[in-house]
Protein backbone atom coordinates (compact mmCIF):
# COMPACT_ATOMS: atom_id res chain seq x y z
CA UNK A 1 0.00 0.00 0.00
CA UNK A 2 1.14 3.51 -0.80
CA UNK A 3 -0.08 6.66 0.89
CA UNK A 4 0.57 10.27 -0.08
CA UNK A 5 -0.14 12.96 2.53
CA UNK A 6 -0.34 16.50 1.14
CA UNK A 7 2.60 15.91 -1.16
CA UNK A 8 4.10 18.78 -3.13
CA UNK A 9 7.21 18.81 -5.27
CA UNK A 10 8.96 21.81 -6.79
CA UNK A 11 11.93 21.40 -9.14
CA UNK A 12 13.11 25.00 -8.94
CA UNK A 13 12.59 27.26 -5.94
CA UNK A 14 10.74 29.99 -7.79
CA UNK A 15 8.78 27.80 -10.19
CA UNK A 16 5.28 26.40 -9.87
CA UNK A 17 5.11 23.10 -8.05
CA UNK A 18 5.11 20.13 -10.47
CA UNK A 19 3.04 18.21 -7.93
CA UNK A 20 0.74 20.37 -5.84
CA UNK A 21 -0.71 19.17 -2.54
CA UNK A 22 -1.71 15.66 -3.58
CA UNK A 23 -3.17 13.20 -1.08
CA UNK A 24 -4.15 9.71 -2.11
CA UNK A 25 -3.90 6.04 -1.24
CA UNK A 26 -3.18 3.19 -3.62
CA UNK A 27 -4.57 -0.07 -2.26
CA UNK A 28 -2.82 -3.43 -2.42
CA UNK A 29 -3.73 -5.30 -5.61
CA UNK A 30 -5.49 -2.42 -7.34
CA UNK A 31 -5.03 -1.35 -10.95
CA UNK A 32 -4.85 2.43 -11.15
CA UNK A 33 -4.47 4.43 -14.37
CA UNK A 34 -3.10 7.96 -14.15
CA UNK A 35 -3.82 10.29 -17.05
CA UNK A 36 -2.72 13.82 -17.78
CA UNK A 37 -1.06 16.08 -20.33
CA UNK A 38 2.67 16.51 -20.68
CA UNK A 39 3.66 18.77 -17.84
CA UNK A 40 0.67 17.85 -15.68
CA UNK A 41 3.03 16.36 -13.10
CA UNK A 42 2.27 12.69 -13.60
CA UNK A 43 5.85 11.57 -14.17
CA UNK A 44 7.02 13.61 -11.19
CA UNK A 45 4.38 11.89 -9.10
CA UNK A 46 5.64 8.51 -10.26
CA UNK A 47 9.22 9.33 -9.27
CA UNK A 48 8.03 10.35 -5.80
CA UNK A 49 6.66 6.85 -5.24
CA UNK A 50 10.03 5.06 -5.21
CA UNK A 51 12.25 7.73 -3.70
CA UNK A 52 13.79 8.79 -7.02
CA UNK A 53 12.44 12.16 -5.88
CA UNK A 54 11.75 13.23 -2.30
CA UNK A 55 8.73 15.51 -1.69
CA UNK A 56 9.52 19.15 -0.90
CA UNK A 57 6.40 19.13 1.29
CA UNK A 58 4.30 16.33 2.74
CA UNK A 59 5.12 12.63 3.04
CA UNK A 60 5.06 9.54 0.85
CA UNK A 61 4.60 6.24 2.70
CA UNK A 62 5.43 2.90 1.08
CA UNK A 63 4.41 -0.02 3.30
CA UNK A 64 4.74 2.31 6.30
CA UNK A 65 8.22 3.43 5.22
CA UNK A 66 8.66 7.15 4.68
CA UNK A 67 10.59 7.90 1.47
CA UNK A 68 12.34 10.73 3.31
CA UNK A 69 14.16 8.25 5.50
CA UNK A 70 17.30 7.29 3.56
CA UNK A 71 17.61 4.07 5.51
CA UNK A 72 14.58 2.75 3.62
CA UNK A 73 15.52 3.95 0.11
CA UNK A 74 16.64 0.53 -1.17
CA UNK A 75 13.77 -1.32 0.49
CA UNK A 76 11.33 1.10 -1.09
CA UNK A 77 12.84 0.76 -4.55
CA UNK A 78 12.78 -3.02 -4.23
CA UNK A 79 9.10 -2.74 -3.30
CA UNK A 80 8.02 -0.31 -6.00
CA UNK A 81 9.42 -1.31 -9.38
CA UNK A 82 9.40 1.09 -12.28
CA UNK A 83 9.25 0.71 -16.06
CA UNK A 84 10.11 3.85 -18.02
CA UNK A 85 9.12 5.38 -21.33
CA UNK A 86 12.06 4.93 -23.69
CA UNK A 87 12.83 1.23 -24.25
CA UNK A 88 16.35 2.04 -25.49
CA UNK A 89 17.37 4.13 -22.50
CA UNK A 90 16.61 1.76 -19.65
CA UNK A 91 18.36 -1.43 -20.71
CA UNK A 92 21.80 -1.82 -19.15
CA UNK A 93 23.20 -5.13 -20.35
CA UNK A 94 24.12 -6.67 -23.69
CA UNK A 95 22.35 -9.99 -23.14
CA UNK A 96 18.69 -10.40 -22.14
CA UNK A 97 19.30 -12.68 -19.15
CA UNK A 98 21.96 -10.32 -17.77
CA UNK A 99 19.51 -7.47 -18.16
CA UNK A 100 16.86 -9.26 -16.13
CA UNK A 101 19.44 -10.26 -13.52
CA UNK A 102 20.66 -6.68 -13.02
CA UNK A 103 18.18 -5.80 -10.25
CA UNK A 104 18.60 -8.99 -8.17
CA UNK A 105 22.38 -8.68 -8.57
CA UNK A 106 22.21 -5.22 -7.04
CA UNK A 107 20.21 -6.67 -4.15
CA UNK A 108 23.02 -9.14 -3.49
CA UNK A 109 20.91 -12.21 -4.08
CA UNK A 110 22.52 -15.64 -4.39
CA UNK A 111 23.38 -16.63 -8.01
CA UNK A 112 21.31 -19.82 -7.90
CA UNK A 113 18.27 -17.84 -6.73
CA UNK A 114 18.86 -15.18 -9.42
CA UNK A 115 18.88 -17.93 -12.02
CA UNK A 116 15.44 -19.09 -10.86
CA UNK A 117 14.06 -15.58 -10.78
CA UNK A 118 15.34 -14.77 -14.28
CA UNK A 119 13.75 -17.93 -15.68
CA UNK A 120 10.46 -17.17 -13.96
CA UNK A 121 10.38 -13.47 -14.89
CA UNK A 122 11.11 -14.16 -18.56
CA UNK A 123 8.38 -16.76 -18.60
CA UNK A 124 5.86 -14.33 -17.14
CA UNK A 125 6.38 -11.85 -19.97
CA UNK A 126 6.66 -14.59 -22.60
CA UNK A 127 10.26 -13.85 -23.55
CA UNK A 128 11.98 -17.10 -22.47
CA UNK A 129 13.23 -17.95 -25.95
CA UNK A 130 15.07 -14.64 -26.19
CA UNK A 131 17.13 -15.30 -23.07
CA UNK A 132 20.53 -15.30 -24.78
CA UNK A 133 19.85 -12.61 -27.38
CA UNK A 134 21.19 -9.07 -27.34
CA UNK A 135 18.32 -6.71 -26.39
CA UNK A 136 19.11 -4.11 -29.05
CA UNK A 137 17.97 -6.52 -31.78
CA UNK A 138 14.47 -6.79 -30.30
CA UNK A 139 11.34 -4.79 -31.18
CA UNK A 140 10.16 -1.95 -28.94
CA UNK A 141 7.41 -4.06 -27.39
CA UNK A 142 9.84 -6.88 -26.66
CA UNK A 143 12.33 -4.47 -25.09
CA UNK A 144 9.64 -3.17 -22.76
CA UNK A 145 8.68 -6.72 -21.82
CA UNK A 146 12.34 -7.36 -20.94
CA UNK A 147 12.26 -4.20 -18.81
CA UNK A 148 9.16 -5.57 -17.05
CA UNK A 149 10.92 -8.89 -16.46
CA UNK A 150 13.84 -6.97 -15.00
CA UNK A 151 11.50 -5.39 -12.48
CA UNK A 152 9.64 -8.66 -11.75
CA UNK A 153 12.92 -10.37 -10.90
CA UNK A 154 13.21 -7.99 -7.94
CA UNK A 155 9.85 -9.34 -6.70
CA UNK A 156 8.20 -5.99 -6.01
CA UNK A 157 4.74 -5.45 -4.53
CA UNK A 158 3.89 -2.77 -7.01
CA UNK A 159 4.96 -1.71 -10.50
CA UNK A 160 4.72 1.82 -11.87
CA UNK A 161 4.58 2.13 -15.65
CA UNK A 162 5.71 5.64 -16.53
CA UNK A 163 4.31 6.10 -20.07
CA UNK A 164 5.80 2.75 -20.98
CA UNK A 165 3.59 2.44 -24.06
CA UNK A 166 4.05 5.97 -25.45
CA UNK A 167 6.84 5.16 -27.90
CA UNK A 168 5.53 1.82 -29.17
CA UNK A 169 3.66 0.85 -32.32
CA UNK A 170 0.15 -0.65 -31.91
CA UNK A 171 1.48 -4.20 -31.82
CA UNK A 172 4.08 -3.35 -29.19
CA UNK A 173 1.48 -1.49 -27.14
CA UNK A 174 -0.81 -4.51 -27.18
CA UNK A 175 2.03 -6.81 -26.12
CA UNK A 176 2.88 -4.61 -23.17
CA UNK A 177 -0.75 -4.04 -22.12
CA UNK A 178 -1.34 -7.78 -22.26
CA UNK A 179 1.67 -8.36 -20.01
CA UNK A 180 0.33 -5.73 -17.61
CA UNK A 181 -3.10 -7.34 -17.49
CA UNK A 182 -1.48 -10.70 -16.77
CA UNK A 183 0.29 -9.16 -13.80
CA UNK A 184 -2.95 -7.65 -12.60
CA UNK A 185 -4.60 -11.09 -12.72
CA UNK A 186 -1.86 -12.36 -10.46
CA UNK A 187 -2.66 -9.67 -7.93
CA UNK A 188 0.17 -7.20 -8.59
CA UNK A 189 -0.53 -3.59 -7.63
CA UNK A 190 -0.22 -1.50 -10.78
CA UNK A 191 -0.03 2.19 -11.53
CA UNK A 192 -0.18 2.83 -15.26
CA UNK A 193 0.69 6.33 -16.40
CA UNK A 194 -0.39 7.06 -19.96
CA UNK A 195 -1.91 9.61 -22.26
CA UNK A 196 -3.89 7.06 -24.20
CA UNK A 197 -7.40 7.28 -22.78
CA UNK A 198 -8.40 3.87 -24.20
CA UNK A 199 -5.93 2.23 -21.81
CA UNK A 200 -7.94 3.53 -18.87
CA UNK A 201 -11.10 1.55 -19.59
CA UNK A 202 -9.80 -1.66 -17.98
CA UNK A 203 -8.61 0.03 -14.74
CA UNK A 204 -10.19 -0.28 -11.30
CA UNK A 205 -9.71 3.41 -10.83
CA UNK A 206 -8.71 6.38 -12.97
CA UNK A 207 -6.87 9.48 -11.78
CA UNK A 208 -6.75 12.60 -13.95
CA UNK A 209 -3.98 15.10 -13.27
CA UNK A 210 -3.91 18.73 -14.32
CA UNK A 211 -1.37 21.38 -13.29
CA UNK A 212 0.08 19.23 -10.53
CA UNK A 213 -3.25 18.39 -8.91
CA UNK A 214 -5.37 15.25 -9.04
CA UNK A 215 -8.61 16.69 -10.46
CA UNK A 216 -10.61 13.52 -11.05
CA UNK A 217 -10.49 10.23 -9.14
CA UNK A 218 -13.15 7.61 -9.86
CA UNK A 219 -13.81 4.25 -11.55
CA UNK A 220 -13.61 4.42 -15.39
CA UNK A 221 -17.39 4.21 -15.91
CA UNK A 222 -17.86 7.34 -13.86
CA UNK A 223 -14.87 9.18 -15.34
CA UNK A 224 -16.06 8.60 -18.89
CA UNK A 225 -19.61 9.63 -18.11
CA UNK A 226 -18.25 13.07 -17.23
CA UNK A 227 -17.53 13.87 -20.89
CA UNK A 228 -17.90 17.64 -20.58
CA UNK A 229 -15.51 17.79 -17.65
CA UNK A 230 -12.94 15.71 -19.55
CA UNK A 231 -13.21 18.10 -22.48
CA UNK A 232 -12.56 20.97 -20.11
CA UNK A 233 -9.25 19.40 -19.12
CA UNK A 234 -8.65 18.86 -22.86
CA UNK A 235 -8.51 15.12 -22.40
CA UNK A 236 -9.15 12.96 -25.41
CA UNK A 237 -12.35 10.94 -25.18
CA UNK A 238 -12.15 7.43 -26.67
CA UNK A 239 -14.20 7.47 -29.87
CA UNK A 240 -16.54 4.66 -28.84
CA UNK A 241 -17.46 6.56 -25.70
CA UNK A 242 -17.78 9.80 -27.64
CA UNK A 243 -20.14 8.18 -30.16
CA UNK A 244 -22.27 6.70 -27.38
CA UNK A 245 -22.37 10.07 -25.65
CA UNK A 246 -23.44 11.93 -28.79
CA UNK A 247 -26.12 9.36 -29.58
CA UNK A 248 -27.49 9.71 -26.07
CA UNK A 249 -27.61 13.47 -26.55
CA UNK A 250 -29.71 12.87 -29.66
CA UNK A 251 -32.24 11.02 -27.54
CA UNK A 252 -31.14 7.42 -28.19
CA UNK A 253 -31.41 5.42 -25.01
CA UNK A 254 -28.03 3.86 -24.31
CA UNK A 255 -26.80 3.03 -20.83
CA UNK A 256 -24.21 5.29 -19.21
CA UNK A 257 -21.66 2.55 -18.59
CA UNK A 258 -20.62 1.78 -22.16
CA UNK A 259 -16.82 1.69 -22.30
CA UNK A 260 -15.95 -0.87 -24.94
CA UNK A 261 -16.87 -1.37 -28.58
CA UNK A 262 -18.62 -4.69 -27.91
CA UNK A 263 -20.96 -3.07 -25.37
CA UNK A 264 -21.93 -0.31 -27.78
CA UNK A 265 -22.65 -2.75 -30.60
CA UNK A 266 -24.68 -4.97 -28.31
CA UNK A 267 -26.86 -2.08 -27.11
CA UNK A 268 -27.30 -0.59 -30.58
CA UNK A 269 -28.35 -3.81 -32.28
CA UNK A 270 -31.93 -4.01 -30.92
CA UNK A 271 -32.49 -0.32 -31.75
CA UNK A 272 -31.75 -0.58 -35.46
Amino acid at each position, binding site marked *: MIRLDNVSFTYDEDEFPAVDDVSLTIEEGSFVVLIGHNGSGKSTLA*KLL*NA*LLIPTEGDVWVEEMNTKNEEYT*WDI*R*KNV*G*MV*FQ*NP*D*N*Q*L*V*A*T*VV*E*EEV*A*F*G*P*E*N*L*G*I*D*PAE*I*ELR*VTDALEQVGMSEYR*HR*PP*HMLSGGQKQRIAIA*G*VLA*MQPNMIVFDESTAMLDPQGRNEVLEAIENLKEKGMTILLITHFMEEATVADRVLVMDKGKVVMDAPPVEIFSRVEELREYQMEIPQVIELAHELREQGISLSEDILEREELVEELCPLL
Partner: protein
Amino acid sequence: MLRDITVGQYYPADSLLHRLDPRTKLIATMVFIIIIFMVKTPLQYAALGLFVLLSIYLSKVPVRYMIRGLRSILFILIFAFVINLFFTPGTPIFQLWRIRITYEGLRLASMMLIRLVFLIMGTSLMTLTSSPIQLTDGIEKLLSVFKRVGFPAHEVAMMMSIALRFIPTLLEETDKIMKAQMARGADFESGRLLKRAKALVPLLVPLFIASFKRADDLASAMEARCYRGGKGRTRLHELRYAKRDVVVFLVLIVYFGGVFLLGRL
Protein backbone atom coordinates in the same frame (compact mmCIF):
# COMPACT_ATOMS: atom_id res chain seq x y z
CA MET B 1 30.76 -1.07 -43.88
CA LEU B 2 30.41 -0.76 -40.11
CA ARG B 3 28.87 -4.19 -40.09
CA ASP B 4 32.10 -5.75 -41.42
CA ILE B 5 34.15 -4.95 -38.35
CA THR B 6 34.45 -8.17 -36.39
CA VAL B 7 36.89 -6.90 -33.77
CA GLY B 8 34.86 -6.49 -30.58
CA GLN B 9 31.92 -8.57 -31.77
CA TYR B 10 30.67 -11.74 -30.16
CA TYR B 11 30.07 -14.92 -32.13
CA PRO B 12 27.78 -17.16 -30.07
CA ALA B 13 28.73 -20.83 -30.23
CA ASP B 14 29.50 -23.70 -27.89
CA SER B 15 33.21 -24.43 -28.03
CA LEU B 16 36.17 -24.99 -25.75
CA LEU B 17 37.27 -21.39 -26.28
CA HIS B 18 33.77 -20.08 -25.45
CA ARG B 19 33.70 -22.04 -22.21
CA LEU B 20 37.07 -20.83 -20.97
CA ASP B 21 37.13 -18.30 -18.17
CA PRO B 22 37.49 -14.80 -19.70
CA ARG B 23 40.49 -14.18 -17.43
CA THR B 24 42.29 -17.12 -19.03
CA LYS B 25 41.61 -15.69 -22.47
CA LEU B 26 42.60 -12.17 -21.48
CA ILE B 27 45.93 -13.27 -20.05
CA ALA B 28 46.59 -15.68 -22.93
CA THR B 29 45.90 -12.91 -25.46
CA MET B 30 48.25 -10.53 -23.67
CA VAL B 31 51.04 -13.11 -23.60
CA PHE B 32 50.36 -13.93 -27.25
CA ILE B 33 50.70 -10.26 -28.24
CA ILE B 34 54.02 -9.94 -26.43
CA ILE B 35 55.33 -13.09 -28.07
CA ILE B 36 54.30 -11.90 -31.54
CA PHE B 37 56.69 -9.01 -31.20
CA MET B 38 59.51 -11.12 -29.78
CA VAL B 39 59.74 -13.89 -32.35
CA LYS B 40 62.14 -13.54 -35.29
CA THR B 41 62.73 -16.77 -37.20
CA PRO B 42 60.41 -18.22 -39.87
CA LEU B 43 60.08 -21.40 -37.83
CA GLN B 44 58.73 -19.42 -34.89
CA TYR B 45 56.23 -17.68 -37.16
CA ALA B 46 55.12 -21.03 -38.47
CA ALA B 47 54.60 -22.26 -34.90
CA LEU B 48 52.54 -19.20 -34.02
CA GLY B 49 50.58 -19.57 -37.25
CA LEU B 50 49.79 -23.13 -36.29
CA PHE B 51 48.67 -21.87 -32.88
CA VAL B 52 46.30 -19.32 -34.47
CA LEU B 53 44.88 -21.91 -36.85
CA LEU B 54 44.36 -24.42 -34.04
CA SER B 55 42.61 -21.79 -31.91
CA ILE B 56 40.31 -20.83 -34.77
CA TYR B 57 39.48 -24.48 -35.28
CA LEU B 58 38.76 -24.97 -31.57
CA SER B 59 36.65 -21.81 -31.40
CA LYS B 60 34.16 -23.03 -34.05
CA VAL B 61 34.16 -19.53 -35.54
CA PRO B 62 33.98 -19.91 -39.35
CA VAL B 63 37.26 -19.00 -41.07
CA ARG B 64 35.30 -16.88 -43.55
CA TYR B 65 34.05 -14.78 -40.66
CA MET B 66 37.60 -14.17 -39.46
CA ILE B 67 38.76 -13.19 -42.95
CA ARG B 68 35.90 -10.74 -43.32
CA GLY B 69 37.20 -9.04 -40.18
CA LEU B 70 40.61 -8.67 -41.81
CA ARG B 71 39.06 -7.16 -44.91
CA SER B 72 37.84 -4.15 -42.98
CA ILE B 73 41.41 -3.23 -42.03
CA LEU B 74 42.88 -4.22 -45.39
CA PHE B 75 43.90 -0.61 -45.97
CA ILE B 76 46.01 -0.50 -42.81
CA LEU B 77 47.63 -3.82 -43.70
CA ILE B 78 48.55 -2.68 -47.21
CA PHE B 79 49.78 0.65 -45.92
CA ALA B 80 52.08 -0.95 -43.35
CA PHE B 81 53.35 -3.40 -45.95
CA VAL B 82 54.09 -0.75 -48.59
CA ILE B 83 55.79 1.65 -46.17
CA ASN B 84 58.16 -1.06 -44.97
CA LEU B 85 58.68 -2.42 -48.45
CA PHE B 86 59.80 0.82 -50.07
CA PHE B 87 61.45 2.72 -47.28
CA THR B 88 63.81 0.22 -45.71
CA PRO B 89 67.44 0.76 -46.71
CA GLY B 90 69.61 -2.26 -47.59
CA THR B 91 70.59 -4.48 -50.50
CA PRO B 92 68.40 -3.67 -53.51
CA ILE B 93 66.79 -6.57 -55.30
CA PHE B 94 64.65 -4.49 -57.62
CA GLN B 95 65.00 -0.92 -58.82
CA LEU B 96 62.97 1.19 -61.21
CA TRP B 97 63.80 4.90 -61.42
CA ARG B 98 63.55 6.03 -57.81
CA ILE B 99 61.54 3.16 -56.51
CA ARG B 100 63.70 0.59 -54.84
CA ILE B 101 62.86 -2.61 -53.06
CA THR B 102 65.49 -4.06 -50.77
CA TYR B 103 65.90 -7.52 -49.41
CA GLU B 104 65.61 -6.15 -45.89
CA GLY B 105 62.51 -4.22 -46.87
CA LEU B 106 60.77 -7.28 -48.23
CA ARG B 107 61.68 -9.22 -45.12
CA LEU B 108 60.55 -6.50 -42.72
CA ALA B 109 57.33 -5.84 -44.64
CA SER B 110 56.38 -9.50 -44.66
CA MET B 111 57.14 -9.84 -40.97
CA MET B 112 55.08 -6.76 -40.17
CA LEU B 113 52.19 -8.05 -42.23
CA ILE B 114 52.24 -11.43 -40.54
CA ARG B 115 52.48 -9.84 -37.10
CA LEU B 116 49.52 -7.56 -37.76
CA VAL B 117 47.41 -10.40 -39.10
CA PHE B 118 48.26 -12.55 -36.06
CA LEU B 119 47.53 -9.62 -33.76
CA ILE B 120 44.09 -9.01 -35.27
CA MET B 121 43.24 -12.70 -35.40
CA GLY B 122 44.32 -13.26 -31.80
CA THR B 123 42.43 -10.35 -30.31
CA SER B 124 39.30 -10.90 -32.37
CA LEU B 125 39.28 -14.55 -31.32
CA MET B 126 39.14 -13.36 -27.72
CA THR B 127 36.22 -11.00 -28.30
CA LEU B 128 34.47 -13.41 -30.67
CA THR B 129 34.43 -16.14 -28.04
CA SER B 130 33.62 -14.05 -24.95
CA SER B 131 30.46 -12.02 -24.51
CA PRO B 132 31.02 -8.37 -23.56
CA ILE B 133 29.71 -9.14 -20.08
CA GLN B 134 32.23 -11.93 -19.58
CA LEU B 135 35.02 -9.69 -20.81
CA THR B 136 34.13 -6.81 -18.53
CA ASP B 137 33.71 -9.23 -15.63
CA GLY B 138 37.13 -10.67 -16.41
CA ILE B 139 38.70 -7.24 -16.63
CA GLU B 140 37.01 -6.21 -13.38
CA LYS B 141 38.38 -9.25 -11.61
CA LEU B 142 41.87 -8.82 -13.04
CA LEU B 143 41.91 -5.13 -12.21
CA SER B 144 40.57 -5.63 -8.70
CA VAL B 145 44.14 -6.49 -7.73
CA PHE B 146 44.67 -2.73 -7.87
CA LYS B 147 41.56 -1.96 -5.81
CA ARG B 148 43.71 -1.72 -2.73
CA VAL B 149 45.46 1.33 -4.11
CA GLY B 150 42.08 2.93 -4.76
CA PHE B 151 41.57 1.89 -8.37
CA PRO B 152 37.81 1.88 -9.21
CA ALA B 153 37.78 -1.54 -10.89
CA HIS B 154 34.01 -2.05 -10.72
CA GLU B 155 33.19 1.41 -12.03
CA VAL B 156 35.61 1.08 -14.95
CA ALA B 157 34.14 -2.29 -15.89
CA MET B 158 30.57 -0.97 -15.60
CA MET B 159 31.40 1.98 -17.84
CA MET B 160 32.92 -0.35 -20.39
CA SER B 161 29.91 -2.61 -20.48
CA ILE B 162 27.49 0.31 -20.78
CA ALA B 163 29.58 1.77 -23.59
CA LEU B 164 29.43 -1.58 -25.39
CA ARG B 165 25.68 -1.76 -24.81
CA PHE B 166 25.09 1.67 -26.38
CA ILE B 167 27.33 1.37 -29.44
CA PRO B 168 24.60 -0.12 -31.67
CA THR B 169 22.05 2.39 -30.38
CA LEU B 170 24.38 5.28 -31.14
CA LEU B 171 25.18 3.99 -34.62
CA GLU B 172 21.48 3.78 -35.40
CA GLU B 173 20.93 7.26 -34.05
CA THR B 174 23.83 8.69 -36.07
CA ASP B 175 22.39 7.21 -39.24
CA LYS B 176 18.97 8.69 -38.48
CA ILE B 177 20.17 12.21 -37.70
CA MET B 178 22.47 12.19 -40.70
CA LYS B 179 19.57 11.35 -42.98
CA ALA B 180 17.34 13.95 -41.36
CA GLN B 181 19.93 16.68 -41.90
CA MET B 182 20.56 15.50 -45.46
CA ALA B 183 16.85 15.91 -46.07
CA ARG B 184 17.39 19.54 -45.04
CA GLY B 185 20.14 19.89 -47.62
CA ALA B 186 23.17 19.14 -45.42
CA ASP B 187 26.18 17.82 -47.32
CA PHE B 188 28.50 15.49 -45.43
CA GLU B 189 30.41 14.22 -48.41
CA SER B 190 32.01 17.01 -50.37
CA GLY B 191 34.23 19.99 -49.69
CA ARG B 192 37.58 20.49 -48.03
CA LEU B 193 38.58 19.36 -44.60
CA LEU B 194 37.48 22.50 -42.77
CA LYS B 195 34.13 22.62 -44.53
CA ARG B 196 33.59 18.95 -43.82
CA ALA B 197 34.40 19.41 -40.16
CA LYS B 198 31.92 22.29 -39.98
CA ALA B 199 29.29 20.16 -41.70
CA LEU B 200 29.48 17.75 -38.76
CA VAL B 201 28.08 20.28 -36.28
CA PRO B 202 24.42 19.56 -37.20
CA LEU B 203 25.17 15.88 -36.61
CA LEU B 204 27.27 16.08 -33.45
CA VAL B 205 25.17 18.56 -31.46
CA PRO B 206 21.98 16.46 -31.66
CA LEU B 207 24.00 13.32 -30.92
CA PHE B 208 25.48 14.86 -27.79
CA ILE B 209 22.14 16.16 -26.58
CA ALA B 210 20.48 12.80 -27.16
CA SER B 211 23.34 11.03 -25.37
CA PHE B 212 22.99 13.25 -22.31
CA LYS B 213 19.28 12.50 -22.24
CA ARG B 214 20.02 8.80 -22.53
CA ALA B 215 22.58 8.99 -19.74
CA ASP B 216 20.05 10.74 -17.54
CA ASP B 217 17.32 8.19 -18.27
CA LEU B 218 19.69 5.29 -17.76
CA ALA B 219 20.85 6.67 -14.42
CA SER B 220 17.23 6.85 -13.21
CA ALA B 221 16.51 3.35 -14.48
CA MET B 222 19.60 1.95 -12.74
CA GLU B 223 18.83 3.72 -9.48
CA ALA B 224 15.25 2.50 -9.61
CA ARG B 225 16.64 -1.02 -9.80
CA CYS B 226 18.72 -0.47 -6.66
CA TYR B 227 22.10 -0.01 -8.32
CA ARG B 228 24.57 1.45 -5.81
CA GLY B 229 28.01 0.51 -7.11
CA GLY B 230 29.89 -2.74 -6.82
CA LYS B 231 29.58 -3.20 -3.07
CA GLY B 232 27.44 -6.16 -2.03
CA ARG B 233 26.62 -6.95 -5.64
CA THR B 234 26.35 -10.59 -6.71
CA ARG B 235 26.48 -11.90 -10.27
CA LEU B 236 24.18 -14.23 -12.18
CA HIS B 237 27.23 -15.98 -13.56
CA GLU B 238 30.07 -15.79 -11.07
CA LEU B 239 33.46 -16.32 -12.67
CA ARG B 240 35.07 -19.55 -11.57
CA TYR B 241 38.30 -21.15 -12.73
CA ALA B 242 37.61 -24.66 -13.96
CA LYS B 243 39.92 -27.58 -14.50
CA ARG B 244 40.06 -26.80 -18.21
CA ASP B 245 41.45 -23.34 -17.44
CA VAL B 246 44.34 -24.89 -15.55
CA VAL B 247 44.94 -27.36 -18.38
CA VAL B 248 44.85 -24.59 -20.97
CA PHE B 249 47.31 -22.54 -18.94
CA LEU B 250 49.74 -25.48 -18.74
CA VAL B 251 49.42 -26.16 -22.46
CA LEU B 252 50.04 -22.49 -23.21
CA ILE B 253 53.16 -22.34 -21.05
CA VAL B 254 54.58 -25.39 -22.76
CA TYR B 255 53.64 -24.19 -26.26
CA PHE B 256 54.85 -20.62 -25.89
CA GLY B 257 57.98 -21.88 -24.13
CA GLY B 258 58.53 -24.15 -27.12
CA VAL B 259 58.11 -21.23 -29.54
CA PHE B 260 60.68 -19.37 -27.52
CA LEU B 261 63.16 -22.21 -27.65
CA LEU B 262 62.69 -22.53 -31.42
CA GLY B 263 64.39 -19.15 -31.74
CA ARG B 264 67.49 -20.49 -30.01
CA LEU B 265 67.96 -23.40 -32.36
